[in-house]
């Protein structure tokens, strides 16, 4: 999918961001790659990894070492919540998490896209 394979550290970071996002009230789940998952569950193409779903999180380092991350998050939200508030809460949560994790680095740019409502 992505042009470059994430490093092991980056993969761990993605999982961490995924957990943070899924803990935000109003988030139903990360964009699950549901069609692919269900089809693979039926025994066709591509086996599931068994790990947490991180299909909805993409992490790109800034243009140079001193720059912040660019995080792209795609989530399905619950219908009862106002979509924009959930999206804002997701952005805040991810920004705070990365700020704690990388105190020396400039702020991250977080893009949030709502890909479904349930």
């Amino acid at each position: 999918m992505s042009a470059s394979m994430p490093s092991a550290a980056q993969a761990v970071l993605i999982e961490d961001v995924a957990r943070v996002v899924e803990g935000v009230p109003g988030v139903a789940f990360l964009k699950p790659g549901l069609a692919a998952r269900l089809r693979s569950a039926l025994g066709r193409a591509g086996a599931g990894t068994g790990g947490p779903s991180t299909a909805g999180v993409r992490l790109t380092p800034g243009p140079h070492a001193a720059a912040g991350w660019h995080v792209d998050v795609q989530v399905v939200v619950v219908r009862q919540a106002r979509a924009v508030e959930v999206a804002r809460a997701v952005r805040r949560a991810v920004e705070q998490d990365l700020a704690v994790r990388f105190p020396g680095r400039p702020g991250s740019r977080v893009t949030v896209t709502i890909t479904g409502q349930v």
Partner: protein
Amino acid sequence: MTTHTDPPEGTRADGDDERLPCGRPLSQVWDDWERQVSDPHSATCPHCRHAVRDLEQLETAVAGLREETPETSAYDAEPLTRRVMDLVRLELRPGRPLPLGEPAEDLWIMETVAARALRSAAESVEGVSAGSCRIVDADGPAAGVEVRLDIHAPAHVGLQELAERVRRRVREAADRELGMVIASVDIRVTDLVDSGAENREGDTA
């Protein structure tokens, strides 16, 4: 700097759609099957038939899921099977990302998700059924998006007033449920439906 004129890179309009070896997109094959549209290709192509069989299996599997977890159906009246299948379809053909919230917030919602909420708001007006709902970036300096909604309206009602009510509901839903700034709502009445048919109940002759 990020503005709402730069949609996020990761959100492709073709979503997770898959092109079958015969060249047809999976979403089209599923659509055709659901709408019972048949053509010589789909009737004979082994790849298309295989894809349809997959969809049938998928629906059976999801229906089975529901039986295993009866308590989850309590929080939403809509059948779980339909909701899951809707999500699968949304992933295959999500439309374009549209701006959510204030300009330059870098928050987005996929067009099909927003369109569904707005169509359902329109249908909360009695007798109205919603058809195509396109949401596009507004031209000019106005903030927000332009909604173009087709509806079937009941015959024998004032269309001007009806359109105004639909417009109001759509604007309310966009604000309250989504948080999407709307520049304009264009309503096009594409058909008039005889509302007498709806009053049959308790009124049988």
